[in-house]
C-alpha cells in the first residue's frame, strides 16, 4: 500500500488500472477482501499542515455519494483568540476506526462490524436505521443517510483501499495533512510517524483506542470544544 502522496503518484498507472475495477458501493458487504489481509489501516492527521480547504470534505462526498448536508468527514474550523493573537485552527474529523469501537456492540442486528484490517463498516443490507450506533459514537462520526434511511459513516474508502488506492480524502489533501497506511508495516509512513512523534487521539478517556492519530493537536480540541457554537450550519437536508 502506498503510504504517501509521492509514492502514490509514482504508482499512478497501476492505481488508475485498479480504479477501473474498484467497486463503488458506499457500504461494505461481508467477506470483504480486506478481511483476509494482515494490514491494520490507520491515518495520521498532521493538523499543522491542514489549510482548511475542505478538498477532503468534497472529495469524500463525490467518492461516496454522500447526500447533501451530510458529511463523512469535515474540517472543523475554529477562530482562536489567545491574549492579543488571533488565529484559525483546523481539525479534520472522520470516523476513528477505533480498536474498541462503541458503535459495534450496541447494534441490534450486527450490521456494523469491524473488518480484520480494522476498518469499521456498515452492512447496508442488514442495517435497520435504528441509529443506536449514531448515539454510541463519541465522535459524532455517524449519521442516518437520508437517501437510504440507514447508518452511514467513513469507511476509510474501503472499496478503494481494497483495490490498492488511497482513501479519497488522502488523495486530494493539498497539504499532505492526511497520511494513510498500515501501522503493522514497520516501513510504512504512519508507523514511522507514530514511532517518532508524540501523537494524540481524540477523547482518549473514552477508551475507544482510535486509529486516527493527530500530530500537533491542541489539547483544547481533543474533547468537546469549549467555545461559542458554530457560526455556519447546513440547512435542513434537501432544502
Amino acid at each position, binding site marked *: 500500500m502506498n503510504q504517501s502522496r509521492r509514492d502514490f503518484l509514482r504508482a499512478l498507472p497501476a492505481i488508475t488500472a485498479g480504479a477501473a475495477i474498484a467497486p463503488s458501493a458506499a457500504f461494505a458487504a461481508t467477506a470483504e477482501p480486506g478481511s483476509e489481509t494482515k494490514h491494520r489501516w490507520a491515518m495520521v492527521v498532521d493538523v499543522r499542515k491542514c489549510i482548511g480547504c475542505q478538498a477532503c470534505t468534497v472529495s469524500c462526498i463525490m467518492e461516496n455519494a454522500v447526500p447533501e448536508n451530510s458529511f463523512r468527514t469535515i474540517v472543523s*474550523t475554529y477562530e482562536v*483568540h489567545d491574549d492579543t493573537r488571533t488565529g484559525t485552527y483546523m481539525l479534520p*474529523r472522520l470516523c476513528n476506526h477505533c480498536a474498541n469501537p462503541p458503535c459495534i456492540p450496541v447494534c*441490534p*442486528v450486527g450490521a456494523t462490524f469491524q473488518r480484520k484490517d480494522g476498518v469499521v463498516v456498515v452492512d447496508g443490507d442488514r442495517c435497520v436505521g435504528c441509529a443506536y450506533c*449514531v*448515539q454510541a459514537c463519541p465522535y459524532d462520526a455517524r449519521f442516518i443517510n437520508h437517501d437510504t434511511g440507514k447508518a452511514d459513516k467513513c469507511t476509510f474508502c474501503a472499496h478503494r483501499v481494497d483495490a490498492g488506492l488511497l482513501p479519497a480524502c488522502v488523495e486530494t489533501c493539498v497539504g499532505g495533512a492526511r497520511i494513510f497506511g498500515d501501522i503493522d508495516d514497520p516501513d510504512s509512513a504512519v508507523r514511522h510517524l507514530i514511532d517518532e512523534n508524540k501523537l494524540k487521539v481524540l477523547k482518549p478517556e473514552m477508551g475507544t483506542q482510535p486509529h486516527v492519530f493527530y500530530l500537533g493537536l491542541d489539547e483544547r480540541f481533543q474533547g468537546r*470544544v469549549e467555545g461559542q*457554537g458554530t457560526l455556519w450550519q447546513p440547512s435542513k437536508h434537501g432544502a
Partner: protein
Amino acid sequence: MDSQIIEVLNVTRETAWLPWAVQYFFLIGLSYGSFMLTLPYFVFGKMQHERLGRLALLGALVCGLTAPVALLADLHGPGRFLNFYLHFQPHSWMSWGSFFIPLYLGGLLVYAWLVMRADFARLGQAGTTLAARLYRLAGYGGKAPQSAIAAAALVALLGAILVALYTGMEVMVIRARPLWNTPFLPLQFAATAFAGAIGLMLLFNRLIVGRNTQLEVELNRLLALTLALVLALGGVWLFVSLSGISPSHSAAFNQVAGMAQWQLTAVWAVLATVVPMVLAIRFPASSGLLTGLIAVHSAWMMRWTIFIGGQSIPKTGAGLYDYHLPLGSDGLLGIAGTASLWIALLLLMLDYLPWAGQAFGERKQTNALAADAITSN
C-alpha cells in the same frame, strides 16, 4: 493565558432518535405503569379497586398497542423490524428489547382477553350478527379460571419489568452522551412512567366514566408519593453531580448547567413535579384533572428533554445543535399521528370492548351508560 474559541465551521448532526422515539418511550411507560394498576383488582381480587383496574386495563391496552407503531416508524421502514429477529445480538440492549416488547404485549393481550372473556361470552349470547359471532368466539369457554389470569398476569408482569429495564439500560449504556450515561436514568424512566400512568388514570376517571371522588383521592395520594420518589431521584442525581464523587455525573451536569435553555428546562421539570404534588396533597378530591394532566405532561416532557435535548449537545463541537421541530413525519406529524392513533384505538375499545365488565354486557350500551354502573364502585 486568556483564550476564546469560536467555532466557524463544523458539521451539525441531526437528531437521529426522532420524536417517534419520545412517543414510544412515553407510551410504553404509560402502558406498563397502567398494567401494574390493574393487578389489585383482576389478580388479587380487591373489589374496591374494580374501577381503577378496568380503567387501567384500557390505559395499558391503548398505550401498549400504539407504542410499537411509533417504534416501527422510527426505523424509517416498517419491514426492517424482521432483521431484529433474524440477527439476534446478545450484547445489544435494543436487540433484547425486540424480544421483551412482544413478551410484554403478548402477555398483556392474553391477560386482557382472559379477564374479559366472561363479558365477551355474555355479549355473544344472542344474535346472529357478525359482532355477536365475534364476541362468542372471543368469549369461548366463558369465565376464565383465576389461575389462568394469574399466569397471564405473571407473564405480562415479567415482560413489563423487562421492558422497563431495557428501555432504561438501552439509553444508560451510551457513554458518548454523559447526560444519559447514569444509573439513575432507568429508575427515573420507571418512576416517571408510573407517575404518568397514575396521571392518565386521573384523566380517565374524569373524562371517560364520569367521576369517582374516592378514586381521585386515592390516585392523588399515590401520585404524590410517586412524584416524591421522582424528586428524590432527581435530588440524588443533583447531589452526585455537584459533590464531585462521580466525574461522569459532574461532566454531564457541567455540560448543560451554564446554558439558559437547560436552566429553564430544569425549573420547568421541578415545577411540573412539585406543583401537582402540592395540589394532590392539598386538594386530593378536586385537583385530579389538573394533577393528572401535569403528571402526563411531565412524563412526556422528561423523555423529550432526555432524547431531543440530549441529542442537541454536540459530542465534539462547541455550543448546541439547533433543533427545530419539523412539521412532517419526522416531527410534528409523527407526534400528531401517534396521538391520533391513540385516540382512535381508545374510541374503538370504549365502544367494542366490554372493558366496564358486566355493566357493558348487560346494557349493551356504549361507554357513557356502562360507565355509570361502575362509577359508584
